[in-house]
């Protein structure tokens, strides 16, 4: 089975600060990588995904992630966070039909 590690369980930032959330996975083959976000009271939404090609992936709401194969990493970044980015963020790897998720990172942005 695959495993996904999100090292930051809870992150607190002030508005306009830069964000980087770490994600490492164990799967060594061809990977499909995802970041999902769950805003308070809402369902999981796709932020961005990587299947192949340019390892720097841009998603919605100014988020981006970089796939570094040698490091088995897919870190999420945003140059300047807003209060509305307060949410829980999940990194996921797909192995055929299954998604393997990390344990999530709760981001709290202070206005």
């Amino acid at each position, binding site marked *: 089975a695959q495993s*996904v590690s999100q090292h930051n369980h809870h992150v607190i930032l002030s508005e306009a600060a830069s964000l980087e959330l770490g994600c490492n996975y164990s799967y060594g083959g061809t990977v*499909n990588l*995802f970041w*999902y976000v769950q805003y308070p009271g*809402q*369902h*999981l*939404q*796709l932020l961005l*995904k990587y*299947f192949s090609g340019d390892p720097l992936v841009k998603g919605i709401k100014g988020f981006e992630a970089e796939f570094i194969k040698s490091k088995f990493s897919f870190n999420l970044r945003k140059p300047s966070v807003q209060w509305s980015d307060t949410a829980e963020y*999940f990194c*996921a790897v797909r192995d*055929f*039909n*299954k*998604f*393997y*998720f*990390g*344990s*999530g990172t709760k981001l709290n942005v202070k206005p």
Partner: protein
Amino acid sequence: EAGVTQFPSHSVIEKGQTVTLRCDPISGHDNLYWYRRVMGKEIKFLLHFVKESKQDESGMPNNRFLAERTGGTYSTLKVQPAELEDSGVYFCASSRGVLQETQYFGPGTRLLVL
């Protein structure tokens, strides 16, 4: 396009009782998945339907859990009898295909077994 819907949003039951969760996938999505998140840990795969057939049920914890998808549309997940450790959030997701496809998630059902 309507998203994945789940019912109920919350359920509180006593140990030993039965609970049935329902998921309606996005229209036209043949693939339906169930996941579970226990105690704020990682979201874990339970099973995968392709239309009405169980493609993969390797994540089902034990035989107290029964999933069905009669007619290949909505799915139900029954827990009978429920145990304390079954508490958590049950997510449903759907996708049109499998490879190179995004899974779209529902809002989840929060189950509490007392």
